[in-house]
């Protein structure tokens, strides 16, 4: 039995390694490019490993665009949006999943339809006009407030809360717990993995915003990391791809660190123990 388990683990590990390599190939290209000197980037046959581990690319990318400051701005923007979207999404998702109230279907439909609005494309100009009249241009307000709530998170939390057995709510009611206490003390702890997942997704969404921050900021003090990456790209001339990829990977790092922390919540069996007791 134990030996079987060992073999199974080894098989799974092998499969995981294989799948990960395939999926990471394009990113691997970014990594090798980031370590190549400009002269090594475009050679034939294409080389997999860099001849020189040219760390200078990272230093150049970091210093030439003041990446530290830009990433700080991105971090502020993304954390605020992540928290806002997640909290408001939990609240509204809870309203739609656990309550029957007048107009709930209509309100849900009204919210749902916003999923289909290509917001990043079509709303830039009217949204910018709102920012101008609020005197929010070139402030953190403009970078965050318009994105604090979304249908995506609400819809996800609704879907998730609906999978949680009704008996739990009934039991809580018998114990005299109000709806807010039920949410905070039972529902949220039971939903850690989904909430963690949606928080990461919201973070990534904000972190990768490009056109809106570009339109709404007017100074390097307010610019974000994605704008910085664009700064590294030469226009009408060959770019220094090593530096661009080094920048890309540095900008990628915070998201991966966040995800690594969150994925620890994905542990099988939490719900079961919650249910049985």
């Amino acid at each position, binding site marked *: 039995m134990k030996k079987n388990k060992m073999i199974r683990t080894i098989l799974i590990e092998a499969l995981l390694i294989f799948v990960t390599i395939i999926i990471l190939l394009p990113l691997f290209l970014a990594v090798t490019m980031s370590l190549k000197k400009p002269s090594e980037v*475009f050679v034939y046959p294409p080389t997999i490993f860099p001849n020189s581990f040219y760390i200078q690319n990272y230093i150049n990318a970091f210093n030439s665009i003041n990446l530290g400051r830009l990433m700080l701005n991105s971090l502020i923007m993304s954390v605020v949006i992540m928290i806002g979207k997640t909290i408001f999404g939990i609240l509204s998702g809870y309203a739609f999943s656990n309550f029957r109230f007048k107009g709930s279907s209509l309100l849900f439909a009204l919210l749902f339809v916003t999923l289909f609005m290509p917001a990043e494309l079509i709303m*830039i100009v009217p949204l910018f006009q709102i*920012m101008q009249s609020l005197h929010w241009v070139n402030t953190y307000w403009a970078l965050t407030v318009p994105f604090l709530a979304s249908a995506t998170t609400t819809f996800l939390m609704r879907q998730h809360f609906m999978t949680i057995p009704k008996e739990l709510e009934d039991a809580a009611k018998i114990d005299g717990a109000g709806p807010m206490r039920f949410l905070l003390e039972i529902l949220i702890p039971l939903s850690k993995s989904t909430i963690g997942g949606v928080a990461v997704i919201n973070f990534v969404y904000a972190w990768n915003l490009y056109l809106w921050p570009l*339109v709404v900021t*007017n100074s390097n003090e307010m610019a974000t990391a994605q704008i910085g990456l664009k700064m590294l790209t030469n226009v009408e001339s*060959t770019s220094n791809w090593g530096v661009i990829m080094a920048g890309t990977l540095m900008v990628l790092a915070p998201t991966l660190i966040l995800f690594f922390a969150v994925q620890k919540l994905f542990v099988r069996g939490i719900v079961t123990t919650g249910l049985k007791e």
Partner: protein
Amino acid sequence: MRKVFLFSVLTVLAVAIFAAPVTIQFWHAMGGTDRIQLLQNLANEFMQQNPDIKVDVQYTGSYTDTMTKMIAAVRAGNPPDLVMIYDIGTQMMIDSGVIIPIQNMIDKDPSFDINTLVPASRGYYTVGGKLYSMPFNSSNPVIFYNKTLFEKAGLDPNNPPNTFEEFIEYAKKLTVKDANGNTIQYGFTFGSGEPLAWFFEQFMAVQNALLLNNNNGRDGRATKAVFANEAGLRIFNFFNEMIQNGSAINAGPGWDNARQIFISQRAAMLITSTSDVNMMVKAAQSGNFSLGVMFLPHPSGVPYGGVIVGGASLWMVNTNNAQREEATWKFLKFLESTDAQIQWSTGTGYFPVNKNAIIKLLYEGYYAKNPPYLVTVLQLLMSNVTPATRGGATGAFPQIRTAVDTAFGKMFTKAMTPQQALQWAQEQANQAIANYNSMY
């Protein structure tokens, strides 16, 4: 008494206004850290000379991003003082109702000699006899070639092809196949998408043929596209022949893939922008091949016209603030000065738009030391300034580019014959022009 009081208040106010430093916003699209830094340095130098003026230099993304940001800012009533707009945005900017034609500033200021501007650049941004924007980062397409591969193919590296016919011959000879019949080196490569449409426009100008009626929209609003003719067909056939006989490779949309193919020596000739000359020279050095630069080829028997200026120019925005406008104009004059143009050109690869800068660089031996730069400048200066080489002006230009590129795609994939594709592109272009013009 009251009058005296009023007068003194006004005087104090006036002094306060004129003494206070004025801040102007300058938005540009010059991606690449060297270029961003270079522009900032130029602005710093200007601010040192003019302590009462502060220039906020802001990178605003690609050309289209910058246009988007500009549109949002104009519609919200808060545009910058000076903005860099790409070549094909010229008519849109003229129609925007928010700009000050540079001509107005020049007419008021005898200290600026308009004749120092390179004729081709000046011609592109002149519409209806009026210079609308200040040429700044001007470029053309040019053909870079790999002299080392020329030698390997037994071709004289110092005698590159001149005509379409020779070019096709050379491309064939420069194509190398492996034992299985797969091509491991192509004669020629180019980026499709927007670049390809731009090259089409250039090859029209090379044949001194118009793209649009009303002299390319220069003597009045263009109402029709007129490129579906002999000249247009020669270009379509030129590209198609090399694609179908396998001596040219379509690198896919944009500039980067074609550069990758050329720099890794998988193609012997590349058509791209002159502003790439800096990076190409470096790439050739580190890639151990000898770089040549040649003019665009032309169909034999057709009189040579020239090339069209591409890149971008600087637009002054009407802010209804005389002081800021004055400061902006001063900054513009600085950017056009011989020294600033030399810094800009040698640091980037764009050619100088000030004749004196070219002369000075020549005397200093810069072009003797850097022959590729000389070719790019010569191609420009040897172009005749005609309505054809001044390029088209219409607000529907982006759609026309898409249509032309799509037509090339239809031809390359054999969905249409060259003739059909060309005709189709012209119909699409006419529709887009009619749409745009219906608003003015």
